[in-house]
């Protein structure tokens, strides 16, 4: 299961909408071993394509360096599909199998009104969908708006 804050879901959706019709991509980092997405980070889609995404190789290098230095892990890898459903393609499965410890979050922007967001684990070429539990932001209880 992926437990994720509402503000992080909103950030993914906003990024996907902004880059539509190109695919948007990014990560959410969290403390190593926590499986808790906390730090949102948009990545540049080096492919700038409506059907493909790829992290720029220098950006990827810096990302991993940062993650190591801060003792974090890549909890979520997200990207958008802009004309098809939010389900891993064969290309997603091939690349996704290389990052089996991250939740693969896909959003579909094919319907501008209704954004579809789903989460998957991709391991050894197998796709397993998992439930997404969206929780309120981490602001103190007294400050939360209803």
């Amino acid at each position: 299961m992926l437990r994720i804050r509402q503000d992080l879901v909103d950030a993914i959706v906003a990024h996907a909408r902004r880059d539509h019709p190109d695919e948007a991509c990014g990560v959410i980092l969290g403390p190593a071993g926590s499986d808790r997405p906390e730090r949102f980070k948009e990545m540049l889609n080096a492919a700038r394509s409506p059907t493909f995404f790829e992290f720029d190789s220098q950006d990827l290098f810096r990302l991993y360096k940062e993650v190591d230095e801060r003792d974090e892990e890549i909890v979520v890898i997200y990207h958008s599909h802009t004309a098809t459903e939010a389900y891993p393609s064969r290309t997603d499965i091939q690349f996704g199998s290389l990052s089996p410890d991250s939740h693969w979050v896909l959003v579909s922007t094919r319907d501008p009104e209704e954004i579809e967001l789903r989460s998957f684990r991709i391991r050894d070429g197998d796709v397993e969908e998992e439930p997404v539990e969206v929780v309120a932001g981490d602001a103190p209880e007294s400050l939360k708006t209803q």
Partner: protein
Amino acid sequence: MAIEVRIPTILRSYTSGERAVEGKGDTLGDLFADLDTRHDGLRGRLVSDDGALNRFVNVYLNDEDVRFLGGIETPVAEGDVVTILPAVAGGAADKSRAAEKKSAGG
């Protein structure tokens, strides 16, 4: 003459869980061949059948992507650090068809 090679989680099954290993060679290709003598199968995950770098990994010499240096022929020397990272990519298009046909063979 040792060159440090940093191994991503996904490939640590080839290095008994080690995050970094050492090897030698004059080029990246030599280095990977050397590593393969102690970490059987590792080279096959880095280099494709045609001898070029596998597109599923990014390889960096110190902090530069070797695709912009000399690919598999990139010269390496003692004290260098080679970092291997899984490429993060995907997308709706099926770009794998050609590769799969090839691996399916005749």
